[in-house]
């Protein structure tokens, strides 16, 4: 592939130039790293610190308890041994299961849908501008509003979704989407996919836009079937862009909070890791325990992303030439 490039032209030049560039790189990175360190590092460290304390309503009263929020062995008066802490909390593992299930399904749907929409938007047709703006609307509406809006549309008695499905004879009676355990997750997925597919579409589109047009031209002249062009040429070229989009969608999906919180706040079928750690942090005055859950969530996310980067062979540095 002729477009492949790696770490800049330094290879072609002398060592002093490479040094000079490295120095420049440091100064280019410094402001961002400084900002990240100043603003993000402190709260993150605080959360990890709190996870080792038994802090409750008043966060400064906690004392250091090592790993007791994570693992604790308790011997009851009856002589029975109980395992406690986040690692032995069935509610937590239920939340992990919910979150992972939700993330995998939603990200797959969003990626495919996003890619399809991006391909359509990349084609030349009349009214493309309007369509492109229209596509972005779901992403543009604040989540707290769109969640409420959907809760309204999904309502069993006066929700429009049931009405449409009834009119189309797809269902025979009104479904209480957010109330039933078996449909609550579907409801959350419907809304999330609707909301975030545009995000994926826009990023895929940006990737597509960076693909030089003459490649298509060449393929067309050679009479290659468009589907083959897509899989053999387009997809490999936009793969890095899609991979990054998927990572960030994955991170967002695994941390999902507001949508579930508004749509199905207390259903055990949809409670996610963020929802349950918020519950402990804020509602139940278990600040230490909630922080331990957040830290575990952080660890799970880190593992997930590392696995994805490793298994998906996402090229972090660009050093392996394609």
């Amino acid at each position, binding site marked *: 592939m002729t477009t492949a490039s790696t770490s800049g032209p330094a290879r072609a030049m002398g060592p002093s130039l490479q040094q000079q560039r490295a120095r420049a790189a440091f100064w280019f990175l410094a402001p961002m790293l*400084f900002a990240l*360190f*100043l603003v993000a590092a402190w709260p993150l460290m605080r959360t990890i610190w709190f996870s080792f304390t038994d802090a*409750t*309503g*008043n*966060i*400064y009263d906690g004392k250091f308890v090592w790993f007791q929020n994570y693992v604790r062995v308790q011997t009851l008066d009856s002589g029975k041994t109980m395992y406690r802490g986040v690692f032995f909390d069935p509610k937590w593992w239920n939340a992990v299961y919910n979150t992972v299930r939700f993330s995998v399904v939603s990200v797959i749907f969003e990626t495919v849908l996003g890619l399809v929409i991006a391909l359509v938007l990349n084609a030349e047709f009349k009214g493309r501008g309007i369509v492109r703006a229209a596509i972005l609307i779901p992403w543009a509406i604040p989540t707290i509003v769109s969640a409420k809006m959907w809760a309204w549309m999904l*309502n*069993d*008695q*006066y929700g429009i979704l049931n009405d449409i499905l009834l009119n189309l004879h797809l269902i025979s009676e*009104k479904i*209480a*989407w*957010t*109330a*039933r*355990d078996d449909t609550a997750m579907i409801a959350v997925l419907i809304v999330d996919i609707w909301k975030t597919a545009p995000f994926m579409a826009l990023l895929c589109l940006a990737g597509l836009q960076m693909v030089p047009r003459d490649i298509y031209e060449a393929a067309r002249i050679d009479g290659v079937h468009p589907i083959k062009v897509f899989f053999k040429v387009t997809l490999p070229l936009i793969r890095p862009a899609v991979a990054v989009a998927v990572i960030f969608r994955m991170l967002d999906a695994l941390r999902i909070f507001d949508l579930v919180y508004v749509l*199905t*706040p*207390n*259903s*055990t079928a949809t409670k996610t890791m963020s929802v349950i750690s*918020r*519950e402990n942090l*804020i*509602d*139940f*005055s278990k*600040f230490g325990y909630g922080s331990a859950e957040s830290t575990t969530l952080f660890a799970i996310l880190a593992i997930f992303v590392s696995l994805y980067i490793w298994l998906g062979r996402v090229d972090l540095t660009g050093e392996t030439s394609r």
Partner: protein
Amino acid sequence: MSFGYRAKAMRATAIAAVLAAVGAPVMAEEITYVSGAVGKAVENFAALVKPWEEATGNTVKMVPMPASTTDQFAQYRLWLSAGTSDIDLYQTDVIWAPQLADHFVDLTEAAKDLAPTHFPSIIESQTVNGKLVALPIFTDAPALYYRKDLLDKYGVAVPKTWDELTAAAKTVMDGERAAGNPDFWGFVWQGNAYEGLTCDALEWVKSFGGGQIVEPDGTISINNEKAVKALETAKGWVGTISPEGVLSYQEEESRGVWQAGNAAFMRNWPYAYGLGNGDDSKVKGLFGVTTLPVGAEGDTSAATLGGWNVAVSKYSKHQEAAISLALYLAGPEAQKQRAINESNLPTIISLYDDPDIAAAQPIIPQWKDVFLNAVPRPSAPTLSHYNEVSSLFWSAVHDTLSGNGSAADNLAKLEADLTDLKGDGWK
């Protein structure tokens, strides 16, 4: 290290800026009051505190918050945990006192003359370990709404027991459906898994004589036959006289069904009264309110106690003025004005016999009966664990209602969980 140096420099600048801002001699103080804001709350509040502002020369700024009480609680807890001094007074829900007690000023001494004029049960709910955490400013209690016209049409009496309600709802519903309204339901209430379900279910259990989950002395009482019977009765409604979706309803969803004229009975708070009599309401003038039914003859009706209070932050820099404002807001003058302008139920007993209030808001004296049967949620005995207790309770109830396990099993499990949570005593 350059980072440390810079941080210090920035901090010094910040402090200088703050000093400059407050440097001017403070004569009249500005008091900040934070509260969930609904309707014209901000405008009404400005009018409400005007006399106090004129009398003391201070000014009051109101910070409006979203209407959701759980969101308010989360914000207040964060601000208080961080020791924010920007807010002097917090408007608090009746169940928050024990959980936020550490952050508020003790008002026992300041309110020693005012407190005895309020309903003792409310003052008690705001007292934690002998410390008066907040002063009540208005109260709230739900009632049973019923369609007068439809009860007359089918010749049924206003139900006194839950069984009567079930039968009446069925009669009316069957009749209305046969008459061509397939969307008609017998009884709507709040079955979503949230704090509101704790309120609804506490009323069923209490009115069946099944106690109040955790008794005032801290005993866990929920696992008993009467509570089981209460929950089983409620389970029987889902899908028969109440739509299956009631399991996702909060107050507004039930009001939606009710106000569209699609329900014979509704359990709701006083706010639905005014809205139900609005010009565009399909049930305008067609309904009445009464106390919630009982389990059987001889049991007493129960209505969960709601309501709001005002607390003074211990991080406030204007505590004296803030306490004075709190006393004013909880006093008879402000409560009367609230009752007349916003139909908030007063907490001062004598105001229920006030002719001006009776003239302006005839519903308020009527609500006194409901209010006399009010039952508090177990926030006082469970202290900082209340939210978790409530969450365990509503989950057990919601599971029962949606058919995940029988009432007996779920309550036995709930008892085990609560015992576990209690450990060697609530703290």
